[in-house]
């Protein structure tokens, strides 16, 4: 049985059709989705995580329908999302941010160390750089111990050194956690994803 099944999902914003009958399934491993801006990648991830409601279609996670379920309930089932534009708790420290998601001090510290944000543990989120914010967003996602992680453009705003840190981290976690990763550039996804889709105009136009 597939872990995630997306069945004929469509999404319209007013008259604009952003997703058209998107159907795919994921058993496990890492699925890469690439495509130009406006192709519907982010909307698709937001629909799976519950932050957007589809105009029609169904989503099943481990056989359970999660279409239109509240995001906080979907998280509890094991799907976590890392946003392209970081959504963190701006007036809390980096450590407090991760602790809220991890719920265990040791695990929170472990994630911070692995994602290279241990040196800014006690800085508030509104005091750190864009690149570190991106790492913090990933830390929040993985601190939830998800079964499926939805990573929206995780390499955007990162310098070469941090891209390597993230790639290395995702490769290691890829054995135990399934992921859907979106990116503009296929180069970074190729070494990571076991399967890739290209999206254009709200449709999956190619899979490899």
């Amino acid at each position: 049985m597939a872990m995630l099944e997306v069945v004929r999902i469509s999404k319209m914003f007013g008259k604009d059709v952003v997703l058209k009958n998107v159907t795919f399934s994921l058993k496990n491993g890492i699925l890469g989705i690439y495509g130009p801006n406006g192709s519907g990648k982010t909307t698709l991830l937001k629909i799976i995580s519950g932050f957007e409601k589809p105009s029609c279609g169904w989503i099943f996670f481990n056989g359970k329908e999660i279409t239109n379920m509240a995001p906080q309930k979907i998280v509890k089932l094991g799907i976590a999302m890392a946003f392209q534009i970081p959504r963190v708790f701006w007036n809390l420290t980096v450590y407090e941010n991760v602790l809220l998601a991890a719920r265990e001090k040791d695990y929170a510290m472990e994630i911070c160390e692995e994602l290279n944000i241990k040196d800014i543990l006690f800085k508030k989120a509104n005091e750190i750089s864009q690149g570190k914010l991106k790492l913090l967003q990933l830390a929040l996602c993985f601190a939830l111990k998800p079964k499926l992680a939805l990573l929206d453009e995780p390499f955007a705003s990162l310098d070469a050194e941090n891209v390597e840190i993230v790639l290395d981290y995702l490769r290691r976690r890829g054995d135990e956690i399934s992921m859907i990763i979106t990116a503009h550039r296929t180069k970074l996804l190729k070494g990571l994803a076991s399967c890739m889709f290209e999206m254009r105009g709200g449709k999956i136009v190619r899979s490899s």
Partner: protein
Amino acid sequence: MFIDITVRILVFVLLIIPVFFDYYIKLLAASALILAIFTISWLYLERDLGWESFGHSIPFGVSAYLFAINPLLLFLSPLTTFLLFPLSVFGKSIFPFASFIFSVFFWYLAHHIVVDGRGGEEGFKVLSVNLDHVYFLSVALFIFSYLLIWKVSESNLGLKIKAVRDDEIAARAIGINPLPVKMFGFTISCSLASIAGILHAAAFGYVSPSIFSPYFSLFPFVAATIGGRKLWSCVLASYLVVGLSWFLSPYVPEFHYIIYALAIILASFTHGYARSSKNI
């Protein structure tokens, strides 16, 4: 650090001094202390939850009225949360105005509350309570309010409340349901405002519609602004506003409006949690 300790010492001195003075000073001190509890209830809502209420006189006044009508009704005070919390549907930017308008509505409504021939514009007399008892109870409840806010703020639940304040979507993304978390925060704040309202009624021996007036609606905002939105400084600011209003009103009628005007000007230069979720 030095200023912080000095402010705390000053507050404790202010708590003790009135014990040695006459009825008038004690009533003044009780009034300031009760409004200090009212202010920290407001500050908790603003600082930890990010909601700036200009209608905090609703839980304050409704509880005072319930107590005046029948002291047994004071157990309904925490339910005053349900009068203010629904206004949060308007969002953080509209909430101050919506809550203020709602408090004005209560001000109007209070003129028409009559029970057993009592009430109306005259208001209600409250069971006679010895001022010394009210004062010591106020001191105890002030300390209780401070400890409650401190403990809740430092707890895991307090961290969740601050997370919801900063970004509700981010909170949902890590599995926090914002609604019950916000509701809990509002209940703490409204319950403390209710305690202050009941003490106010007990100290003065009556409750009239003016308890919903802009003087009370805006008081916590004014004291918090003067106090730099820090808990202990706000307590000191409450004493300052009440003291100045009492002593200078015979010379400058309605002197508190001057303080209020200055506070509103000052607020435009200072930064509140409620204004923005970023860069606070």
